[in-house]
């Protein structure tokens, strides 16, 4: 691995991986309290090279290879934040974040609340998540529902290169703990942005309409956004003009943008890789139904991963929501009965 990515000037076009690296680089350059820690984040630059060059530029004390122990990584980050630092923690893979779960649930999420604001913990927990990269067991989980169910955490996930930069900057700047879910199959997706003009940093909590449409709304996030955009393209041939909403932030949830879209279209399909039962889609469908009931022409549908342990790589394509499955769901939106 070269250290080309160290340079403040971004590569054009940049990958999502490079945008994430640049976000941390800029955050560390702007704020000396920002510290990166995790397994292999130093010399190696992380197994996905997201922290490439940070140790070389900012030193081992700012970008630290820790012992291999996720509870210890997040637990020590809590203490560092208590002393005024702004830790950015890397969990190597989704399923490797589970040992840190107790620290996350019992301390990180509620420290502000239990101390009446005395101890806020501005910790960013970066978690590569989701499937589609041919990972063997324990390397492809979609763990977002666990985090969403924990009050006190913000949960965000970029789906574009620009958002990877903007959302990570916003997460690091946030005074609350943020679980930053990185769709690992989009790490190598590309976009062009200018060195002089890095993508805008927006506050956390706003969804965005990625494709306007009038027939139905696809509500999605992270790794499923490209699937939905492709499905929307294909749906044109069927005469459906699909709107695609990228949530970006699962917590806090942007009811306003989502509901405004569904009220316009009257139909909604939620698409994500995580399991359907107990997954984010259930919550979203309930919210949409509660708020948009009189605008709905059909039940809100979900296209999700099956309710099974994540499959082995040679079978994962059957599990992951694809374009056809999304179009099948769109076809079931009671077009005959409606307008």
């Amino acid at each position, binding site marked *: 691995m070269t250290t080309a990515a160290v340079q403040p000037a971004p590569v054009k076009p940049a990958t999502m991986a490079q945008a994430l690296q640049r976000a941390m680089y800029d955050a560390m350059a702007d704020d000396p309290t920002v510290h990166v820690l995790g397994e292999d984040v130093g010399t190696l630059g992380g197994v996905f090279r997201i922290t490439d060059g940070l140790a070389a530029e900012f030193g081992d004390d700012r970008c630290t290879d820790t012992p291999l122990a996720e509870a210890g990584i997040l637990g020590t980050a809590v203490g560092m934040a208590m002393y005024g630092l702004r830790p950015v923690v890397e969990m190597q893979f989704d399923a490797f974040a589970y040992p840190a779960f107790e620290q996350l649930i019992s301390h990180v999420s509620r420290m*502000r609340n239990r101390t009446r604001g005395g101890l806020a913990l501005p910790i960013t927990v970066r978690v590569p998540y989701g499937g589609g990269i041919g990972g063997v067991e324990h390397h492809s989980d979609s763990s977002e529902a666990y985090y969403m169910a924990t009050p006190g955490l913000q949960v965000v996930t970029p789906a574009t290169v620009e958002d990877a930069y903007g959302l990570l900057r916003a997460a690091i700047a946030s005074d609350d703990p943020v679980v930053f879910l990185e769709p690992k199959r989009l790490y190598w997706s590309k976009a062009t942005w200018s060195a002089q003009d890095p993508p805008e940093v927006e506050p956390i909590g706003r969804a965005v309409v990625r494709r306007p449409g009038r027939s139905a709304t696809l509500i999605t996030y992270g790794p499923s956004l490209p699937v939905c955009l492709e499905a929307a393209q294909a749906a044109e041939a069927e005469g459906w003009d699909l709107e695609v909403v990228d949530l970006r932030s699962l917590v806090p949830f942007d009811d306003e943008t989502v509901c405004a879209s569904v009220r316009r279209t009257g139909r909604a399909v939620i698409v994500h890789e995580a399991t359907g039962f107990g997954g984010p889609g259930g919550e979203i469908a309930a919210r949409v139904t509660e708020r948009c009931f009189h605008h709905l022409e059909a039940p809100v549908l979900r296209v999700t991963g099956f309710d099974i342990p994540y499959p082995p790589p040679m079978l994962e394509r059957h599990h992951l929501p694809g374009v056809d499955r999304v179009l099948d769901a769109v076809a079931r939106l009671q077009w005959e009965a409606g307008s």
Partner: protein
Amino acid sequence: MRKSSMTVQELPGAVAYRPTPPPAWKPRIDPTPLLPDPEPYRVLGTDAAASVAPELLLKLYAQLVRGRRYNTQATALTKQGRLAVYPSSTGQEACEVAAALALEERDWLFPSYRDTLAAVARGLDPVAALTLLRGDWHTGYDPREHRIAPLCTPLATQLPHAVGLAHAARLKGDDVVALAMVGDGGTSEGDFHEALNFAAVWRAPVVFLVQNNGFAISVPLAKQTAAPSLAHKAVGYGMPGRLVDGNDAPAVHQVLTEAVSRARRGEGPTLIEAITYRIDAHTNADDATRYRVASEIEAWREHDPIRLLEQELTGRGLLDDDTKQAATDAAEAMAADLRQRMNADPVLDPMDLFAHVYAERSSQLQEQADQLRAELDAEGEER
């Protein structure tokens, strides 16, 4: 083993095969200096006692008497329904008090739920220390103001916090030390292992005080570990382990002070095991007669921390009736004040439930806060 046993038989004409150590292997540190002494370190009743300043002994004494009274008062408050629960540190006051006195003002204390006394001995208002156990909020004080982390209920999870804070202080160039408290049961938790490992690797200025009080609720140490002692666990992490009589206040104070100084000098963490005994049940909700015999408790009452220190002070002519009375009076005054203030109903504002979940309230939480506000208003109108 014969010295030549690692070489194969050399036959005429054969090339000698002399195994070398694995290429990556090199000797690390000598474990011998890290090993704890075979017996718990003691001051009282030994030659070391003579060298302890009378002022320190008297200070410890006054704090022990006050600490014991605090424990009995807090236990009484559970019976009066003023505390939801109280995990007593009766019998362990020497550890609690010494932990507080071993720290400088700029240092940080990381207590477990049984360590409210350490926080109080450090100067925290007892009412603020007992907020968690009264149940009107979780943490009743500003941790940064007092440099006392929130009382920690999930076992040993506060230990990595102490390591991280100490590490951050060291990175900033501040000579701040963190003292983390945990019980014998907590040493079985994964966070204990991870905290000690991180602390040693980072040479963090942190001191781990394990109060081995014999039981994790009902489970005795023999079912908790097969280690020679809990202090021995330090060696595996590359830090020194110290064993001390946890009911010998000047001994605990001395061992802690040395470890704190060592940490402050940048020489890294220390694990201290203090041998003590939980005289009371786990909490007021526990029935200790189900798992231990009265004679064991009686033996420990003979080794009570206040009694041991009183013997020393009396033997040296340092404890006259006036001094003793002054300590008792001060403790009674603290207890009376605590009783009086805890007997007043705390002022609760249900809207606080939404006040500190996030820095900025989400629209969802605002809706829920509005709902609660409306419910409260309706309740008010009914009255």
